[in-house]
């Protein structure tokens, strides 16, 4: 397996200059997710404006794959509706779990296509999914909080 397939230039760029890093107010939900096998962790906040993902802010510590993934997540879901974001999560997850057999669509996943190579390294898939799973959890909580407030 070619190591360059894993560490694409796009991933290394996001790792060095992560987009949307740092924790910001306001937010409706905050979660802390850990990868117990390697210790990578992320604290992630979601701010919703109605049905729109207004902000995803995060403080992450981990490898280049998990850091770059959080950066790409921010690029992809901020400004989208919750449903669109969940759809992107599905697409990204399918790519990650495709063992390198899934052809990614750049129009949909943008820089996320760089993670196609990660799918060939099963041990690293969980690194790429850490921030996405945190986002899914936080968004579900934010939606629940909002609907409670709206009652």
């Amino acid at each position, binding site marked *: *397996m070619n*190591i360059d397939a*894993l*560490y694409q230039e796009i991933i*290394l760029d996001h790792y060095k200059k992560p987009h949307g890093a740092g924790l910001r107010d306001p937010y409706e939900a905050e979660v802390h997710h850990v990868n117990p*096998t*390697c*210790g*990578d*962790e992320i604290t992630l906040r979601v701010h919703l404006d109605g049905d729109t993902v207004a902000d995803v802010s995060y403080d992450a*510590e*981990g*490898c*280049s*794959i998990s*850091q770059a993934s959080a950066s790409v997540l921010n690029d992809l879901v901020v400004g989208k509706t919750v449903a669109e974001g969940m759809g992107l999560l599905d697409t990204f997850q399918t790519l990650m779990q495709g063992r390198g057999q899934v052809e990614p669509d750049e129009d949909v996943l943008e820089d996320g296509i760089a993670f196609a190579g990660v799918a060939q*390294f099963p041990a*690293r898939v969980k*690194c790429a999914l850490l921030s996405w799973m945190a986002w899914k959890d936080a968004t579900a909580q934010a939606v629940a909080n909002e609907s409670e407030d709206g009652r």
Partner: protein
Amino acid sequence: MSAAGGYDVEKVREDFPILSRALAGGQSLVYLDSANTSQKPTAVIDAMAEHYRRHNANVARAMHQLGAEATEAFEGARDKIATFVNAPSRDEIVFTKNASEALNLVANAYRNAIGDLEIRPGDEIVTTELEHHSNIVPWQLLAQRTGATLRWFGLTDEGRLDLSNLDELVNERTRIVTVAWVSNMLGSVSPLDAIIARAHAVGAVVVVDASQAVPQMPVDFAALGADFVVFTGHKMVGPTGIGVLWGRKALLEELPPFLGGGEMIETVTMERSTYAPPPAKFEAGTPPIVQAVGLGAAVDYLTGLGMDNVAAHEREITAYALKRLGEIDGLTIVGPGEAVERGGAVSFTLDGVHPHDVSQLLDSYGIAVRAGHHCAKPAHQRFGVQSTTRASFYLYTTPAEIDALVEGIERTQKYFKVV
């Protein structure tokens, strides 16, 4: 490397078939993850295969010839291991699944104890900040269950146990002190003599996790003076699936069992049971028979090399690795930087490159190391790092492999453009 006492590492390597296999892309293997698990010599592989081929039967229960042969092989392994660690009695050697189970056995036996050995609210259990999680969590559980208080030794900045508060920490309320002989992450060797002396002066028992010690150095449990010592087979050229608990006979006799089941009983009625004497009392169910045979062969192999020679080689190779790694800009060793009272595991951080990325790059060059928290999160936290890369050496590690590691790290730095 000059062969210490005639120790010929190249010849030793011929005993380990895996070391000459090629990895993907035809790369040769540089295996620097022996603190995780060691490789196995042909003698161990063959002994296990031979047992399955010719002597396989259950032990202690089968009355036929194969049963007798299997029992002899299994109990013969117990004798070999007792001799290897100089246990006062072979009946003090209890086979477990691994070192973690051995530690859990002791903690749970105390949890079940009533009378003199019962742990009560107000009692204290002392561990250390450098422990593997397996020597922290069982004691947290015991403390939670009994109302005892868990306390711990801190670490010096160099990565050694800080004994400055020994007399306060280990006091008349202390019932159990548990400590790693050699840290799996920092590599430091614990000053056991002082700890054992103090613990015994206040009437506490001492548990020693020797998982990283027994593979690397000559040990003498009778002279050590601890009350329980645990270690595992797979880190000492033996198989996985077998660990050892050594305990003082009087304690093993007094403590209640951990697991109940076949072969640990004397007699069973529907109302109650009485138990077999140790070690059988702590070996419920069919034991790891062929694993014991493999561990016996491992002990024979190590004895053949001479544990003094193994320890001398470990010291030399670790000193060389510390020197070479210390020359790399941006590399910080977490743990003692000198090969004094130190085992052969070296953990480090590399500026600008996360440990998982370091290990992934090294793997692409054929170099196997471990990255992460090494099941020692508190020790990492103490040094303000979330994870490290760990290279660990053993009786088959060569200076050329250390050179390959250094070169691999430098290539990694270039790959991530941090130099």
